[in-house]
């Protein structure tokens, strides 16, 4: 409990710094008035907005006003949709969650068996093949993999739809695209975690007792290797969310990522800021959950 409170308290300065970085980027490097108004706005409109935003105040007062708005969830209105930015972002969240979840599922289904297999068959042809595949997965730009999958399965073979949502079939290509990127990283980590565990003495003991190799690998090996793996999975959240931004654009997936990219292209700063904070909050929370899961799975770990 003390651990939980301590970590929640540690989130606050991080969010504070994020707000400062975003504030500085948006208010200082660019002219917020021209960013918030469409390019067709008149000079009178600009002057009025400047006054109503309090842009004539000193910078630190502007920052505190800004901070107050953030705490109450007020990110301003999107000039494109004429709606509160936060609502727009939250509306798109379920679609992104769906894609992220499906991708994580694909990544887990690929990386756990392959990671274990290449650890057991260390330095064999299979191991070389799997680790080689993982390197290739990292070297390929993820959006290009998506394009190639569309080319093969939608254009040539006509099995899966090119883009959009609606059915389970729509999930397949985006989830494989994003899942592959995460699987490439996870396979490597599971392999090295497994290798470390299999070198432990209790594994030798289990083997010398005459246990079946499958039992040794599963019960004694994998269950212990799982501890770092859970943390790894949670730490992939940042990669996962970063990946959805691009994957959603490739597949026209109506999630938060697509909204954000559109907003950046249109310079719809209210939406950009709202999405940034929601994403940062998600990543921080999932890192906290990873810490908690780690403690739960391995009671030996004690944090001071």
């Amino acid at each position, binding site marked *: 409990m003390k651990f939980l409170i301590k970590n929640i308290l540690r989130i606050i*300065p*991080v969010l504070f*710094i*994020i707000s400062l*970085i*975003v504030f500085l*980027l*948006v208010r200082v*490097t*660019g002219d917020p008035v021209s*960013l918030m108004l469409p390019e067709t706005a008149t000079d009178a409109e600009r002057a009025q907005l400047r006054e109503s935003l309090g842009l004539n105040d000193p910078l630190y007062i502007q920052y505190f006003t800004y901070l107050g708005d953030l705490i109450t969830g007020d990110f301003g209105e999107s000039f494109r949709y004429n709606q509160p930015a936060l609502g727009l972002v939250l509306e798109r969240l379920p679609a992104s969650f769906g894609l992220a979840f499906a991708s994580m599922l694909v990544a887990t289904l690929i990386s756990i068996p392959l990671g274990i297999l290449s650890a057991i068959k260390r330095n064999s042809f299979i191991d070389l093949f799997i680790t080689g595949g993982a*390197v*290739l997965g*990292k*070297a*390929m*730009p*993820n*959006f*290009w993999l998506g*394009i*190639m999958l*569309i*080319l093969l399965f939608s*254009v040539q073979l006509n099995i899966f739809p090119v883009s959009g949502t609606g059915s389970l079939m729509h999930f397949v290509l985006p989830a494989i695209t994003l899942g592959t990127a995460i699987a490439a990283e996870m396979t*490597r980590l599971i*392999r*090295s975690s497994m*290798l*470390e565990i299999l070198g432990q003495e209790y594994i030798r003991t289990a083997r010398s007792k005459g246990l079946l190799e499958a039992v040794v690998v599963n019960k004694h090996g994998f269950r212990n290797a799982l501890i770092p793996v859970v943390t790894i999975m949670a730490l992939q959240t*940042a*990669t996962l*969310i*970063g990946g959805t*931004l*691009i994957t959603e*654009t*490739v597949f026209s997936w109506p999630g938060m990522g697509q909204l*954000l*990219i559109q*907003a*950046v*292209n249109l*310079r719809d*700063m209210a939406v*950009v*800021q709202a*999405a*940034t904070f929601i*994403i*940062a909050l998600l*990543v*921080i929370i999932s*890192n906290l959950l990873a810490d908690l899961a780690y403690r739960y799975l391995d009671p030996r770990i004690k944090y001071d």
Partner: protein
Amino acid sequence: MRMFSRIEVKKELTLEETKTDKKAYSLKWLKVLLNSKTGTLGLIIVVFMVLMAILANVIAPHDPAQTDVVNRLVPPVWAEGGNPDYILGTDNLGRDILSRIIVGSRVSLLVGISAVFLAGAIGLVLGLISGYYGGFFDRVIMRTVDAFLAIPNILFMLIVLAVIGPSLMTLIFVLGATTWVMYARMVRGETLSIKERDYVRSARAVGAKDIRIISRYILPNIISSFIVIATLNVATTIILESSLSFLGLGIQPPDVSWGLMLSDGREYLATSWWVATFPGVAITITVLGIIFLGDWLRDVLDPKTKTN
């Protein structure tokens, strides 16, 4: 007297030892190079790419911006309807894809290498301050690192690009300013451990100034890990550049970039597979080469961080 000669013998022995150590080290270095097939392959790919970027204007068979209305979307030479003038085919405006890939390598390498230099410089300075001096600076820098880690890199880049607007310089700046975090963490960690070692303590006891301790004792111990991370980071940066250009937020036409070519090619997937295929192959090969080279450098320079 007897004792004295003994010491002399021992001293000679250690000198001899260090000589053979040095020889063994360079032999080992050579052995690792020859033994590592992937390392050799990586080196070949990287040298090839660098030469291609430098000689782009000489070796490109066509002007990459030259449109040819008659020969739009010509398939590669081995496919049906291919034209021997355009080995990898042409895009929707009739521009030669091979020439565009050759010229596009310039942007990828330029952005990749410059951004890594920028990120490395920021990370090195902040990491050294954080690790060496500790205290308040350390706390501020490490919380900033946490904040950067909480936001996916690409998101930071999007905010800056939304505010400043895309261009080549912005791209290098943005990529550099968001990827410094990993260098800062590594440098801080190494500095923390090195500054407690006996030779640093004795240097300090003798009265060496901070700047001397950092440049003579700490930096040389960090530099090999640093080079390894920087090399591997060029690969990540190239992928990020192509992703941003693909999203329309990176390199702007008429400049040529592999990511930009992919976003053009995406529009013509239904009829012309080659437009979106070859630039991706170019990115993948380049990145693979850099990863191979980086892994090999790690084995040579920094054996303690070697992965299984």
